[in-house]
């Protein structure tokens, strides 16, 4: 699944969206199972804060990120390469690999 990366409007972070490889569209109806994800990310060494409608995840090899139910990520870095690497690692852990 390709990843669309774009700078957020404040230019202080990056937004990542998992898009369909054929249509290039982001499935806004997707609803990730946060309970299951929080458990599985925990076993992969992520520190996970379950804030209800979103998850905040940290790990030493990624920038701190927020995961929304649709799979959208908000990544706390102003470095595009770091944002891309973070998105790839998180999506891999979520089973939404490019």
């Amino acid at each position, binding site marked *: 699944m390709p990843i669309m990366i774009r700078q*957020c*409007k*404040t*230019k*202080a*972070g990056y937004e990542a969206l998992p898009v369909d490889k054929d249509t290039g569209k982001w499935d806004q109806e997707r609803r990730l199972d946060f309970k299951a994800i929080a458990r599985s990310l925990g076993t992969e060494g992520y520190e996970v*804060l379950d*804030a*209800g*409608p*979103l998850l*905040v995840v940290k790990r030493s090899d990624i920038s*701190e990120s*927020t995961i929304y139910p649709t799979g959208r990520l*908000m990544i*706390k870095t*102003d470095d595009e390469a770091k944002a891309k690497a973070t998105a790839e690692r998180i999506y891999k852990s979520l089973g939404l690999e490019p």
Partner: protein
Amino acid sequence: MRLLGLISGGIDSPVAAHLMLAKGHQLDLLHYDNRPFTDDKQLEKVKALAALIAHLVGNARRPHLLVSPHGKVQVQIARGAQRRLGCVLCRRMMFHVASALAERDGYDALVTGESLGQVASQTLMNIRAEEAAAKVPVLRPLIGFDKVEIIDIARRIGTFDRSIVPSLCCTIVPERPATRAKVSDVLKAEEGLDMVTLVKMELDGIKEVEF
């Protein structure tokens, strides 16, 4: 008067604080630290803004900068209340906590940078629903100003360039925040939260920060 100015790191709240300081009032600053739903740059901005504001009034009336840990409370609001009321409940919590601090430490009123209609949370109905949580007067020196007027003052006092330094927006904002919140609805929503514990937890966590 001894005032408590709520400061966010944006353009408006430093201007509001400055205007009240310029009137000769004593004013301290209270910032709500929203991490992990914002980034570390926000607090750095607030410290820099506090220094600029302090520079304008001199050492005798140098404000203290207090920082309130707001992130944990945001989690409880997001988990326990209707999602679209999140921003209104967040701001009500700010007023609950600031009021408790004012009563504990002897502040006469709160000062905010609100002006009508600038963002979703600043409709008249939302302002009413939010300020109903305050137990001390809320002063809004910018309420009738438009953005151009506020920016003019911010440029004049030197805070504008610092306020526009990029920092992450709040990531826990709902997709469709309420713009016409009713007091009865937010009071009902707060019944589902342990407000006494949440306010005490945040109040007890307030720390003064050097800048």
